[in-house]
């Protein structure tokens, strides 16, 4: 199960399904953001998902890299909030890692994950531990990479990544916010879960789940 490749249609179908799933979480995300921030994260994630689905249903690029960059730009256009912009940066970073490709391998997937992290870090200046989306994304990508490098089993690696994302999300409970609206009263954020980390956890979980289904169907 190592040598899997995904074409543009494979990737868009996984992403579209994951985006669709996100819409089931908007109320929870709104409530989490309302505690420390301004409560728009539900709206924000909903609009971003709609934009993803709209673009990816009829992408105007055959190059997967360019398609992801454009997907990010579309997300930003409808949702230039902090979350939306960083989500867009993640797409653009992922896309830049696989420019000029019409098929991607698992190694490319790892590059995409790291590209997404770079995009978010470059734009948002945050690091792991700052109580942001990075706290679920970074452990997920790292774990996926380590597991796949060690065992060359994508299904296994996806499972491990989801667990790492979940642990990362739960760990934000104990962190102080260094960025975003919570950072103006950092002590007030301790004991509260970060909305952005939660949103990314759900995205990772859905993406991994649909990708696993696709892989399993192929075997």
């Amino acid at each position, binding site marked *: 199960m190592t040598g899997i490749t995904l074409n543009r249609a494979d990737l868009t179908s996984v992403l579209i399904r994951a985006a669709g799933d996100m819409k089931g979480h908007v109320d929870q995300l709104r409530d989490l953001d309302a505690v420390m921030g301004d409560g728009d994260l539900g709206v924000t994630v909903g609009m971003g998902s709609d934009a993803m689905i709209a673009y990816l249903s009829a992408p105007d690029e055959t190059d997967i890299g360019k398609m992801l960059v454009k997907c990010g730009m579309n997300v930003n*256009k409808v949702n*230039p909030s902090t979350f939306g*912009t960083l989500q867009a940066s993640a797409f653009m970073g992922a896309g830049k890692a696989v420019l000029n490709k019409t098929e991607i391998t698992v190694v490319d997937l790892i590059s995409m994950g790291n590209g997404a992290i770079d995009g978010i870090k470059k734009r948002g200046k945050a690091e792991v531990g700052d109580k942001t989306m990075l706290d679920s994304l970074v452990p997920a990508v790292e774990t996926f990479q380590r597991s796949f490098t060690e065992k060359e089993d994508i299904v296994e690696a996806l499972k491990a990544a989801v667990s790492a994302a979940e642990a990362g999300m739960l760990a934000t409970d104990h962190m102080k916010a260094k960025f975003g609206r919570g950072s103006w009263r950092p002590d007030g954020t301790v004991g509260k879960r970060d909305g952005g980390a939660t949103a990314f956890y759900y995205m990772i979980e859905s993406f991994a789940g649909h990708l696993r289904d696709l892989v399993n169907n192929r075997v």
Partner: protein
Amino acid sequence: MKKLMNDPLQFVDETISGILKAYPFHLRLTKESPRGLVRADAPVKGKVAICTGGGSGHIPLFLGYVGPGLLDGVSIGNVFASPSADTMLAVTKEVNGGAGVLYLFGNYSGDTMNFEMAAEMASMEDIPVQSSVAADDVASAPASQKERRRGIAGIFFAYKIAGAKADTMANLDEVKAAADRVIANTCTMGVALSPCTIPAVGKPNFTIAEDEMEIGMGIHGEPGIERTKLKKADEVAAIMAERVINDLPFKSGDEAAMLMNGLGATPPEELFILSSKVHDILKAHGIKVYKTFVGEYATSMEMAGASLSLLRLDDEFKKLLDAPAFSPFLPQWRKS
């Protein structure tokens, strides 16, 4: 929610439409984005263009500062939400008169990140862009972490002075330096008495008791320093003034420009009562007020409250502050 509006989701676009019908001589839309507005005569050849942008719900911020002697273009977000980088890029392209573009905006993460993205895209189109980020709210972080502070009403001074500087045909670095110097010398502190409601949300952004006020609250309802019983105007003025004076700090012998800004529902009468006391306090500190501005310069829709901004002046700032400028959104001022 008691608002004179139609569809909450059309709130911003209908506002823009009303503005364009009211002031067609003043502003026009960008070709590429319905959320980008530029001076009717943009681009001004050879002049450094200045762009700003931010969420809606703060008029005259941000679009009211576009005009001769002020800014060249503005990107408009939804209520209390950043505009998108591609709107910013559309504006950038239409205002660039060949001398480059300064992005001058308030310190909120959404705005900062989107302006950064826009700057990267602009540089790919060979438009030189620099950024200055206003962060004047003394209540939002200690002076040692000034760069983390929120940008609030004090950005008015940066707009006015950078706009006048650009009109002298200074180059991009010089205009940015003027803006940065204003930002470094501006301190603001606000109080809020009542909340406001984002139309698409439909309920107030915070709650506060009938006899309470929040000292240091941000213009979107961000947490302040302290929630207390409503105090007399003279006490409120003293709290704001002492905090602002001690922050820079302003010293005896300094000359300052003062802005007493209303958040929306607070009547001008109350603003003048506050500013009267602030004048007395500044006098007692030996700080001379060169120019006073009282009115609504940065609002939060129907929120009640006020903020005090002080800018430390030097001769260049005085000249630039007095320079002519025009916008139908701003009160008139006069050479001192």
